[in-house]
């Protein structure tokens, strides 16, 4: 998961990155890219799209790194960029067939998942999955998720807990 970084080192690194030091940026990137990709992959369900989204988020982050005030904010900031790009991408998947809301996998989707986990996630809707994956791969709590997605925190909390209840019934009973 995420690599622990010494705080002082971290501050130094971000200072360098803000000056345009690509190696420094890559050091910061190293601490999040796996989680970002997994988050995007699970959320979008498509390898190519996930790759594109993380790539675009990285470029955005690099070009606006100067705006980042706190080094500590880097992870949540780049997660926010990624989550928003995922949302944008999901909006583009505008196809209403009778398979509304179904979790359909593209042929290129190679996640070896436990069958029951995959089936359980299928019963959730897009938004529920987005919230769960932000929680799993981002490590965020409801309030943080609400701020990342600009949603009502009550909604996030209830939707998330409802989703976990659904999963619990299917996976842990």
């Amino acid at each position, binding site marked *: 998961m995420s690599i622990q970084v010494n705080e002082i080192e971290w501050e130094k690194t971000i200072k360098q990155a803000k000056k345009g030091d690509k190696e420094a940026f890559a050091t910061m990137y190293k601490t999040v*890219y796996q989680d970002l990709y997994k988050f995007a992959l699970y959320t979008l369900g498509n390898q190519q799209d996930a790759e594109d989204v993380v790539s675009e988020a990285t470029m955005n982050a690099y070009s606006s790194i100067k705006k980042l005030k706190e080094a500590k904010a880097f992870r949540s900031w780049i997660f926010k960029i990624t989550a928003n790009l995922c949302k944008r991408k999901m909006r583009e998947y505008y196809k209403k067939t009778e398979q509304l809301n179904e979790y359909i996998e593209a042929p290129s989707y190679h996640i070896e998942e436990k069958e029951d986990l995959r089936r359980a996630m299928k019963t959730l809707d897009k938004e529920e999955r987005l919230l769960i994956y932000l929680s799993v791969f981002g490590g965020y709590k409801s309030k943080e998720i609400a701020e990342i997605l600009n949603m009502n925190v009550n909604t996030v909390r209830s939707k998330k807990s409802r989703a976990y209840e659904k999963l619990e019934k299917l996976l842990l009973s």
Partner: protein
Amino acid sequence: MIEKKINEMIKENSEKIEIPNSLKPEQVIEKLEKNNQKRRYFGKYAGIVAAIVCLFIGLDMIKDNVTERRIEKNDIVQQEKATIEEKVPVTTAKAKRELATIDNYDIVYDSIYSNTNLRQNAHGANLEGATDFFVPEEKTKEIYSDTNTQVSGIDEADIIKTDGNYLYVVKQDNIAYRENREVSIINVDNGKMDKVSTLSIKKENYHIVEVYLDENQLIVIGQQSEEKNGENKKNVACYDLYVMENYTTYMTIFDITDRSNPIKVKEYKQSGSYGSSRKVDEIVYLFTRFIPDATRDKEEIEAYIPYINQKPLQSDEIYLKEKGENQNAVVIASVSLKQLGKVIDKKAVYGGGDQFYVSKDNIYIYCEKWKETKNKSKIQTEITKLSYKNGEIIATDTCNINGAITDTFSIDENEGYLRVVTTCTSWSNKTSEETVWNALYILDSALQVTGKISNLAKGETIQSARFFGETGYFVTFKKVDPLFSVNLSNPDNPEIIGELKITGFSDYLHFWDENLLLGIGVEADKNGTEKGIKLSMFDISNPANVKEVDKIVLPCSDYFCEAMYNYKAVMLHLEQNQIGFSIGSYNEKRTKKFKSDFYLFKYENGTGFSYEVCPILEDEEEANIYYENVRGIMVADYLYVINASQGIISYYKGQDSSWEKISKISL
């Protein structure tokens, strides 16, 4: 804890995932190098990233996930019985019905809990304006198309506005994350365009969302975010250190009497992220969403009480809907444009909701909530009603109805009655089996249900709705599209009087004239498989027997169309029988570049639909992904196709010819 266990399961499964090579840190460094070079090459296009070109190449033809139109949809909350007491009327001549406000801030403080620090760090705008005396010349009034709003007479903000002589465009930056800080003012005259000025607001972490135009005032609405330290002063809950954001919404008023010289005259500030706004009779009503924080001490009021222009709201301006569950508040303020930004009234409703509908007399805030019983869970919508006469805002009533409002146009007020169509979902707690159906409610002025229809279109969800007077129309869809007609003339007994089953479905309904209803949406075959974008014209002269008298289908399977989810992206110029919006698409086999065009449709009685394609100004070097933030505006006989990230092309149509390009301008 369930959450922990399940998260671990998912995480475990994800361990085996291979990260693509292109995302590995070494590759990223290379990409950044290349990107830098390209940036230098493009000069003024610095910032446009090569990666974005890659974004659309190689996208899977078969989309595996179907999107929901509004991911931002807010849903489910544990419903607790809300006890709202009727306020004892203050001795005034007319006793108004009003929800109870709070007595003191402690009540708010005690009822919320969260865990972040707040740092107030506002920056002023840097704008210098000259103060020359300027007399604008009288211009003849041209007929022009205006923002497509939900209720006529109630203006809504947008990224582009016009007064027939000028275009006011919020320049969009699609590259860096939220960089919109400029508004361009462009003079238009018979197809010729001339940028006369650009106003910019230089604040940190700020971006312009949308604008209003009011005679000689330009009202710019923007949002600023500010990172705050995740310092857990009170050891509440168990958060890791993180830095999240705090939002403030600004309304900046410019005097544009001299269009070439905009002058900032007032800056107005309100706590919270921008929700929505309306402009009625020279008063702007601004709605923001404020997330309070109670990890600070009670004395640090700014952490949990919203502020307007450096002053906190008073207790008698705060409504508290549910104790203990309150996290977010809706802040509503009325700002006078005549009196240059003076605040007329302000209120906050904690737990009120986050979606808005504004009628001629009332503001309705609503949100989805959960209701759990022993055997079932279901979605409900909680509605709070506020009156807003002459800027005075008073919360009057609240209610709960079954289901969720899935389309902005699903809620409508007429002669004091509120009509709402909802999609209802319920789950069995034992089997997790889900049931879906639709309902229509009529509520009186106290939000009491007078009539309803339930169990409509089982298994389907509402795609679009529109009400007018005593008739309502709504569309549900699973495989085919029933367009329902409802007779609402008797509030105690609404009746479905018609059900037209056709292929595909409409995403947006608009009354063309008293006998015709326009539908913009999607065509599908009998099995529900999508075939392309469709416009339909329905004859509603007899609502009990609606007929689709004409339709036009653009066969495309791989497209992006903002009109499908944003009604402001639709140009409706009924004076000239025109409809317009942008569509971005690939060709059949994705062999050609992604292209976006502005489609201009016409409907004439007798000949039906026809259309022409007017290309959108794009960056010649890159693929044009700018199908969003495109607007078409008609001024007299000229069409201006505005790509708010790049520029504008003007077109003119001769008598018997097609639309011809006249000129173009970059933003």
